[in-house]
């Protein structure tokens, strides 16, 4: 479903973040993506979203070579993926309402009307922002912004879902609620990848984990304490 082949990515004038990485994620899997700060978790997402280009190698998505996509195809590709970005402040329209932010992907896809509002209502209900839907995003706390981002990423019911530190600003109970939401998406058949360096979160969910370490990506088990310590 998602395939890196011999992929190398480096930012201008720096050592590579990923060095000839090969990996594969099947449709419908739930993966954590872990690694220390600066390991390249966000970079992986940006590559998959065609927001960065690799120096070398191939990226296949549903069998398609996305590096060959035209700009219009890239845009459509991005629309098919629900994404929660790490830096919420820069990823929401601050002067728009919660509702408008959540509706943005629908608007871009040219959808509107009752069905769309229904879907938004359900989602805002799930993240607990239904009553505040008219409030401007600029007035929200970091955690609340994260919830808006999550609702926005989910609004389409995407087949593929990326979340970059989705629980970073949330307290424990809210974090679990969000993870439950992601789990539900996964249960409905979507592929979900959650980037986090919160190893205890990973442990409590016992899902498969990809670790970025020494410019490579490998699958690790992070079920018990000894395995977790090794990952650090």
């Amino acid at each position, binding site marked *: 479903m998602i395939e890196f082949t011999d992929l190398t990515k480096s930012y201008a004038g720096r050592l590579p973040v990923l060095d000839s990485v090969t990996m594969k994620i099947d449709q419908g899997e739930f993966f954590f993506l872990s690694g220390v700060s600066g390991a390249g978790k966000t970079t992986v997402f940006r590559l998959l*979203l065609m927001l960065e*280009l690799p120096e070398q190698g191939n990226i296949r998505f549903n069998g398609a070579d996305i590096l060959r996509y035209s700009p219009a195809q890239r*845009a459509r590709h991005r629309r098919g993926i629900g994404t929660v970005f790490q830096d919420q402040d820069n990823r929401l329209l601050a002067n728009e309402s919660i509702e408008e932010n959540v509706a943005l992907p629908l608007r871009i896809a040219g959808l509107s009307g009752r069905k769309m509002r229904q879907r938004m209502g359900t989602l805002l209900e799930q993240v607990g922002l239904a009553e505040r839907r008219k409030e401007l995003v600029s007035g929200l706390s970091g955690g609340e912004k994260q919830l808006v981002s999550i609702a926005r990423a989910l609004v389409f019911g995407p087949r593929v879902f990326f979340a970059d530190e989705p629980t970073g600003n949330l307290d424990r109970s809210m974090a679990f609620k969000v993870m439950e939401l992601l789990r539900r998406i996964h249960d409905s058949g979507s592929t979900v990848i959650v980037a986090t360096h919160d190893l205890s979160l990973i442990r409590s969910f016992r899902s498969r984990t990809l670790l970025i370490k020494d410019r490579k990506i490998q699958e690790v088990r992070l079920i018990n304490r000894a395995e977790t310590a090794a990952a650090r």
Partner: protein
Amino acid sequence: MYLISGIPRAIRNLRRNWHASLNSILIVASSLALLGMVGLLYVNVVHISEIWLSNTTVSLFLKPSLGERQRHLLLRRVQDHPLVARAVLVSPEEGLRSLAAKLGADNGFLTGAEKEGLPYTIDFEVFVDYRKRIGSLAESFDKLNGVEEVVYAERVLGKAKLFFDLTKGLGVFFAGMILISFCLIIANAARLSLYSRRQEIEILHLSGATRGYIRSAFVVEGVLLALIGWARALVLVWFAFQLVIAGLTWNDFTMVLKQLSVFFPWEVLVGALLVLVGLGALSSYLAVNRVLKAIEP
């Protein structure tokens, strides 16, 4: 195709960024108004001076002491002159009536006191071919006995002609300068406002909006800003024009100016609108493209 869907988005954006938009509109409107006023002055100067200089009518103001017979003798002499066509003797009442008709004013536009002092005149046209010799012709009639004053367009214009010529030259110069700086101002306003909204463009881009989708709203926004700027400038220039016109009441000369002055013909207004809308669209388009280029990998 995106342009239609861009309209409601552009309107939303305008309302959301109303502060910044208002600034752009004010900049566009005030520089456009300046351009409009210089342009209007130019148009009027050209218009009025053309009316004046194409006028080949000469009037000989006769001395009030002249009797009926002497007036007719003078008329005969003028009629016999080879350059003169259609010379007629005009009584003060007739003169007043035809002047009023020419200016489109009603008959009572001069006060009674001014009517009292009006002399008999002999009015004639110079054959069009001899227009250049109107000056020397006037001089020779000036020397005739019984003629108090010879009046014709160029002489009345006198110093005004110099003013007209000067305004014409300066008008073209200034209009050119303002036009150039105007283009720069619009392009700059578009660039600045879009750079401050780079984040918004980036979010749209991340969320899977195509270039066309992103561009359309901004291009429509540029067009709307240009439209509003144009309308504001039009209102501004129109009021300034009305104000100046209302003030032109010092003397007969300015009264005549007042009657002759014109506002921009609709073709010019529509042309300005089209140019402006084109400029707004183009500069928005270029500015969005710059931002997109910076974002895309």
